C-alpha cells in the first residue's frame, strides 16, 4: 500500500463513517416516527436495516486496523483513525437504540393507546439535532462546532426529567397504563443515551482536530435519582382524602 493508496483508503473510510452516520440518523428519525404513528411495518424495516449498519461497522473497523497495521500513520492521521474507531462504537450503539425503540413500537402495537407526553418528540428532535451536528463536526473537522454540541445535553436531560415524572404520574393514576408508560420511559432513556453518545462523538472530533483528549461537559441522568425522589414526583397527584 503506497502513500497515495493510504490516503485514498483513509478518505474512503471517513466517508464510510459518514455513511454509517446517515443510516443511523435516518434509523432514529424513522424509529420515532414509527412510535408516534404506531407503524409496525416501519418498525420492522428499521430492525432489518440494522444489518447494513453492522456491515459498515465491520468494514470501517477492518480498514482502520489495516491502515494502522500496514502503515505508520503520522500524528494527525493516527488521531483520525483512532477517532473513527471510537466514533463507530457510538454510532453502533445509537443504531441499537433506534432498534430498541422500533422493538417497543412492535411490543406496544396491542397495548391500549396512550398519548405520549408532548416532551417526548421534543426530546427526540433535540437528540437528533445533537447527532446531526456531531456528524457535521466530524465531516468538516470542525472542533468549534464539536465544542458547542454537548451544551445541548442539558436541555435533553431537562426534557427527560419532565417526561419521566409525567409518565410516573400517569402510572400512579391508571395502573392499566403501566405497560405502555414504562415502555415510553425506556424510549426517553434511549433518547437520553443517544444525546450522550453524540457528546462522545464530539469529544473524539475535538481530539482528532486539536490533538488533545478532552472530556466535554455531560450530565448523566441517574435512574436512582428518580427512585429517590419518586414520592415528590407523585405527590402533586395524590388527592387529599375527603
Amino acid at each position, binding site marked *: 500500500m503506497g502513500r497515495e493508496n493510504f490516503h485514498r483508503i483513509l478518505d474512503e473510510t471517513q466517508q464510510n463513517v459518514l455513511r454509517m452516520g446517515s443510516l443511523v440518523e*435516518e434509523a432514529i428519525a424513522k424509529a420515532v416516527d414509527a412510535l408516534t404513528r404506531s407503524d409496525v411495518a416501519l418498525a420492522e424495516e428499521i430492525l432489518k436495516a440494522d444489518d447494513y449498519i453492522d456491515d459498515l461497522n465491520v468494514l470501517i473497523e477492518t480498514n482502520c486496523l489495516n491502515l494502522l497495521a500496514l502503515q505508520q500513520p503520522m500524528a494527525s492521521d493516527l488521531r483520525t483513525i483512532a477517532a473513527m474507531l471510537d466514533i463507530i462504537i457510538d454510532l453502533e450503539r445509537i443504531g441499537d437504540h433506534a432498534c430498541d425503540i422500533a422493538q417497543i413500537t412492535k411490543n406496544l402495537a396491542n397495548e391500549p393507546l396512550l398519548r405520549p407526553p408532548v416532551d417526548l418528540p421534543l426530546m427526540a428532535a433535540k437528540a437528533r439535532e445533537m447527532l446531526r451536528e456531531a*456528524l457535521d463536526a466530524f465531516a468538516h473537522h470542525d472542533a468549534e462546532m464539536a465544542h458547542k454540541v454537548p451544551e445541548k445535553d442539558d436541555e435533553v436531560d431537562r426534557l427527560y426529567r419532565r417526561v419521566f415524572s409525567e409518565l410516573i404520574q400517569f402510572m400512579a393514576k391508571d395502573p392499566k397504563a403501566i405497560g405502555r408508560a414504562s415502555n415510553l420511559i425506556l424510549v426517553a432513556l434511549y433518547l437520553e443515551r443517544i444525546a450522550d453518545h453524540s457528546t462522545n462523538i464530539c469529544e473524539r472530533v475535538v481530539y482528532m482536530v486539536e490533538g488533545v483528549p478532552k472530556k466535554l461537559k455531560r450530565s448523566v441522568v441517574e435512574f436512582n435519582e428518580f427512585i429517590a425522589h419518586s414520592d415528590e414526583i407523585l405527590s402533586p397527584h395524590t388527592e387529599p382524602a375527603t
Partner: protein
Amino acid sequence: MNRVWPAVAAAALVVVAGLAASPRGALHLGIVAACALAVAALVWTVTGGVERPGGRDPQAAAAVPRSGAPPAPDVLQTAVSPAAADAGSGRAGGNTRGANGAALGLAGIVDALPVGVIALGAGGRIDVFNAAAGDIFGVSPERARGRALIEIVRNSELDRRVAATIREGARDTAAITHLTSGAERHLVVTTLPHPALGPGGVLIIVSDTTRVRELEAVRREFVSNVSHELRTPLTAVKLMVETLQSGVDKAAREQFLSSIAQETERMIALVEDLLDLARLESGKLELRLGRVDVGEVCRQAVRAQEARAQAGEVRLACELPAEGLEVTADRDKLSQVLTNLLDNALRHTPPGGNVTVRTYADGDTAVIEVADTGSGIPSTALAHIFERFYVVDPARARGRSGTGLGLAIVKHIVEAHRGSVSAESELGAGSRFICRLPRDLQIPAHGL
C-alpha cells in the same frame, strides 16, 4: 446596466491621462492599462457592480484586473476537458460569482436554475453544486465544492443511488426524503452517468417537491372533508327513507319528512358553496350589477336568521343609517356575503351573546360590519381564515358547515366588487368582520 458606464468612462480617462503623461514605452502602457482596469474595478465596486446575478461580489470583480488571468473555466470547459476536472480542484460551476465573462456562461446559468444541480467528477468529488442545491440541502456551495458528496449531504438513499448509477451506468429517477433541521423534505432525484466529468462522473438533478406534496395533502383533506360532510346527511336520509318504506305512523312520518327536507337543504347548500367557489376561482363569476340598498339587504339577511338566533338565545340586531345607503352591486351575491358572515357569527356565539350588523358610509365607500360577542379567533389563525378550506378547529367545526368555504366565498365576492374584507378578533371576547365596498362601482366593458 448603466452602472458600467462610470467604470468604463473612468478607465478611459486614466488611459488617456496616462498616455499623455508618459508616451514612452510599452511598459508604461501596461502599467497604465492595469491602473485603468483597477480604477474601473474600483468604480464598479463602489457603484455596486452590474446588476445581474453573480455580479455583486466586489472581490471577484477586482480579481480580474489584478491577476490578469483568463476567466476561470466554467462548467462547459470542465465538461469538454475531463483532465481539467481534477479531483478537488473545485473551481468549476456552482455559484460562480466571478464578475468575469464565465459567470455569464454556463456556470451562471446552472447557478440560476430552480432545480438543484450537483456534478461529481473524478474521485467522486463535487465539481458543481449550484445555489438551488445549496438551498435544498442547507449547505453553502463554497463549502461543498471539492468534497465528497456524503461529507456534504448525508442521505443514505441518495448515496446508494449515486453508487448504483456509477456501477450500472444507468440513469435513474426516484422520490426520496431528506432530513433537515426542520421538517423532512421530499425530493425527486435523477442521477445520470456523465463520463465527460471524468471516470465515475455523475450528474445529480434534485427538485424539491415538499410544497407540491403539502398542496396535495390539502386537496386530499378537502376531498375527505367534503365526502364526510355529504355522507353524513346522505346516510341519515337513507335511513329515514328506509324507515318510511317499512311503514310508520303519521306523526313520525311528518317528523321524518321534515328532517329529510332539512338534510337535503344542507347538502344542496354545501354543493352550491362548492360550485360557487369553483366559479369564483375560475374567474367566470358574472356580476349582475344594479343599485342596491345595503340596509335592505342587511334587514333581509337578518330576518332570515332571526328564528335561528332566537333558538340559540342570541340577540340579533341591525344598525342602519337613517338616510339609506346605496351601492352598485350584485344583490344576490351581496346577500350571500351577509348570510355567510351571519352564519359564522351565530355559530360561534354562545347563548346570551350578541350579533350586530352595522352599515354606514365612509366617504365613497360603504361599510358593512358583522360583529359578535362569541368565541373569537386565535391571532395565529386570523391570518388564514379567508383561505379556502381553512377551519380553525376542525374537530369542533364538524357540526354544521365546517368545510371552511364560507369566508373564502365572502372574500371572492367582495373583491369582485373591488372591495376588501378584513377581520378583527379577540379570543373569548368576539369577532368583527368588516366589508368595504365602493359605492359607485364602475365595471369596465370587458367585465371582471
